[in-house]
């Protein structure tokens, strides 16, 4: 076998994907605080424990299956999608649901029609909308920054020993809370501010910068996955181009009402979604043309949900909707076998 056609085992693919999350995870810990690290630990251990238990119940080999690292990857992805100071039991509910219901009840790795990590995330998002949108402002503008001990106390008890709760860490210098740039701009646009006015606010800019670097870090991890040929270029590229194109068209139509395309490309879960979530080999489309359609549709839906929908970010919903469509897309883009009749 030559260098470019080495067969990779599932565990190699999954483990490489886990490693590629490291830059993004570090950036997120840096800008969002220690809570992210604690979430990573809680989610990874829950996902692995849930997988072990359900495999035992299904009488499948536990150790061999756990070594494919797919449960670990699901746990890590959920953790990176969660707000940093989410109560611990919510993270546990999300991860167990993802592994037990969304993955193993459908037959385990390779049989799940939906991306398990996104099912777990959406379950939490629709069940606990307030906690699930309680993101922290960037450290540079935050009034208080939670230390590691305080983060642990907040996640496990809801209060620090000095009596502070999660909301007191969401305040910025002037006493207002700050959500993610996407959430913030959506609210501001609804109150009649123009896109340029929102972008001109200093606090908004500092917050946006944090998310910009987080997205850059995920982009680096994603590009290295692409160079290592763990993922194909089709889905991430078509997804990002589609986001860029749709948001540019909207800005051209009216630059006051819609956010500029760079903001949409480098905030929220765009890069994490494009490289790590939409590219899930099980639930994504598998044909060449199919992957392009799949990625582009996710990008389009992300912009539509972010701009016109009720939720601040739309990556999870867009991915799940296209997961449903993936088998149909594959059916209509199946390459014709050479010599066979056209249909």
């Amino acid at each position, binding site marked *: 076998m030559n260098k470019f056609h080495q067969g990779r085992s599932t565990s190699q693919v999954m483990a490489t994907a886990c490693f590629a999350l490291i830059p993004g995870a570090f950036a997120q810990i840096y800008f969002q605080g220690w809570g992210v690290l604690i979430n990573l630990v809680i989610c990874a251990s829950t996902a692995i424990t849930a997988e072990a238990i359900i495999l035992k119940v299904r009488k499948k080999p536990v150790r061999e299956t756990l070594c494919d690292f797919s449960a670990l990857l699901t746990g890590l992805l959920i953790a990176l999608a969660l707000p940093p100071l989410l109560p611990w039991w919510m993270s546990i509910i999300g991860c167990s649901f993802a592994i037990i*219901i969304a993955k193993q009840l459908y037959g385990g790795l390779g049989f799940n029609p939906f991306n398990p990590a996104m099912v777990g995330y959406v*379950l939490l998002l*629709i*069940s*606990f*909308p*307030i*906690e699930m949108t309680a993101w922290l402002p960037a450290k540079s503008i935050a009034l208080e920054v939670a230390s590691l001990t305080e983060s642990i106390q907040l996640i496990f008890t809801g209060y620090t020993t000095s009596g502070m709760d999660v909301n007191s860490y969401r305040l910025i210098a002037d006493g207002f809370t700050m959500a993610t740039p996407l959430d913030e701009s959506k609210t501001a646009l609804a109150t009649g501010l123009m896109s340029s006015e929102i972008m001109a606010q200093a606090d908004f800019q500092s917050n946006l910068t944090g998310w910009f670097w987080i997205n850059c870090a995920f982009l680096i991890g994603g590009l290295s996955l692409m160079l290592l040929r763990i993922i194909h270029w089709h889905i991430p590229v078509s997804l990002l181009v589609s986001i860029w194109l749709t948001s540019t068209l909207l800005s051209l139509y009216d630059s006051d009402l819609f956010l500029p395309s760079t903001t949409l490309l480098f905030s929220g879960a765009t890069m994490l979604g494009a490289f790590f979530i939409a590219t899930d080999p099980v639930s994504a489309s598998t044909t060449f043309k199919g992957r392009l359609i799949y990625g582009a549709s996710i990008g389009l839906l992300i912009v539509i949900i972010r701009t016109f929908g009720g939720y601040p970010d739309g990556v999870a919903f867009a991915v799940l909707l296209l997961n449903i469509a993936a088998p149909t897309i594959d059916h209509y883009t199946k390459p014709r076998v050479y010599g066979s009749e056209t249909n």
Partner: protein
Amino acid sequence: MSTTNQYKDLFKQGIWDNNTALVQLLGLCPLLAVTGTLINGLGLGIATTFVLVGSNVTVSIIRAHIPKEIRIPIFVMLIASFVTNVQLLMNAFTYELYLILGIFIPLIVTNCAIIGRAEAFASKNSVGPSFVDGLAQGLGFTLVLMVLGGLRELVGQGTILDGAHLIFGETARSWTSHFYLADQKFLFAVLPPGAFIGLGLLIALKNWYQNKP
């Protein structure tokens, strides 16, 4: 087969072997929509059982006079008149529950479980067995509604028998037991997706229990 044995068998069919919700998978629309709490489930279950028994008995009585070609419209009209009765009765005696169940009371007409029993059983059997069949099928349906409603209530808002006074009067207000104090409801269980997954798990549980060696 003696009559008692036949009745016993009908009950076993209705509640377990051929359960409307868990085996025939009929009447799922109201089942999924109103099982937010145990009491809501019980309320709709009783209403459905009443209609089922009424339509089964009536169809069985007049079965010799129904022209085969137009039997479905006749069944539907009979069922609709019983549903109207139920609706007026609930409006009069359990007004709050009537408001909660809302459109799903008139929609009992479209519950295929009822027309299914009229077509498959009542139009071929005498009054006695038809009455027992309606009662058994209704009981089976009510039980599933109650279990699913109870589960969703417990997971979603941490209570059991919330709103018991809607059916059993003011004395029942204290029946509600709180298992955990929810600051915020677990909305997934309260919303329709929770009903879909809850019903799926109940069916899985039944199949697992039946296939157990």
